[in-house]
């Protein structure tokens, strides 16, 4: 798993590449928390290259969503594969975290 962050003003895009499972979810959490700053207003997780995620990875996404809400910032996700989208939907995450087709759509919706 690899996270690559790009910051444009107060918008932070984080591209997640590879697998997030029970064995590396804590690394995923550290990677996200390490790159998010208090001045960020919008954080978009670009999951286009996420090949696999289990509940351990979803747990981290929810933790980050909670933290961002405390600093009055927004979390969104974009570019989900069909199966990742299905995992999000089954988990009810699509009701609490906006899901967009592209980074641009996530930006325009915020």
């Amino acid at each position, binding site marked *: 798993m690899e996270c690559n962050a790009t910051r444009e003003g107060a918008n932070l895009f984080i591209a997640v590449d590879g697998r997030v499972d029970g064995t590396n979810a804590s690394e995923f959490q550290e990677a996200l928390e390490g790159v998010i700053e208090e001045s960020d207003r919008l954080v978009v997780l670009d999951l286009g290259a996420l090949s696999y995620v289990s509940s351990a990875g979803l747990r981290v996404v929810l933790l980050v969503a*909670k933290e961002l809400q405390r600093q009055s910032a927004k979390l969104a996700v974009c570019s989900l594969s*069909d*199966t990742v989208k299905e995992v999000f939907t089954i988990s009810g995450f699509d009701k609490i975290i906006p899901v967009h087709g592209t980074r641009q759509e996530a930006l325009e919706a915020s």
Partner: protein
Amino acid sequence: MTARLEITMETREEELQRLASAVDRLAADDGWPESLAFKVNLILEELALNVIRYGHDEEGLHEVDIRIVSRADGLTIEMTDDGRPFDPLTDAAAPDLDASVEDRRIGGLGIHLTRSMTSEMRYRREDGKNCLTLTLARGE
């Protein structure tokens, strides 16, 4: 044509990678769609991790037996462990899918995902072991 995988793993988290590699090989050999391999990996990870983390009170390694049989019409997964009695059909609290970000409880999703992704799930306790049989349609 029938393809199968039988694997015995120890109750330590490093074993999950070996399990995932074995499933990926079976998926490639048997021509599964990517989504099916994803789901089988997810189901096995969620269930195995539960046994590894919560299955036993005492220290020490235990074994989990996993058998996957793939036929033209679908897949059967059997999983057996000697952990404390745990019936995923009745012993897991359902997550509150309608809660807000603040109120949404962390965790509890693994069993929910597993149940949602299987077309049938049967549990029995036999000879001091949890025996779980799951069925997935090939297109799922």
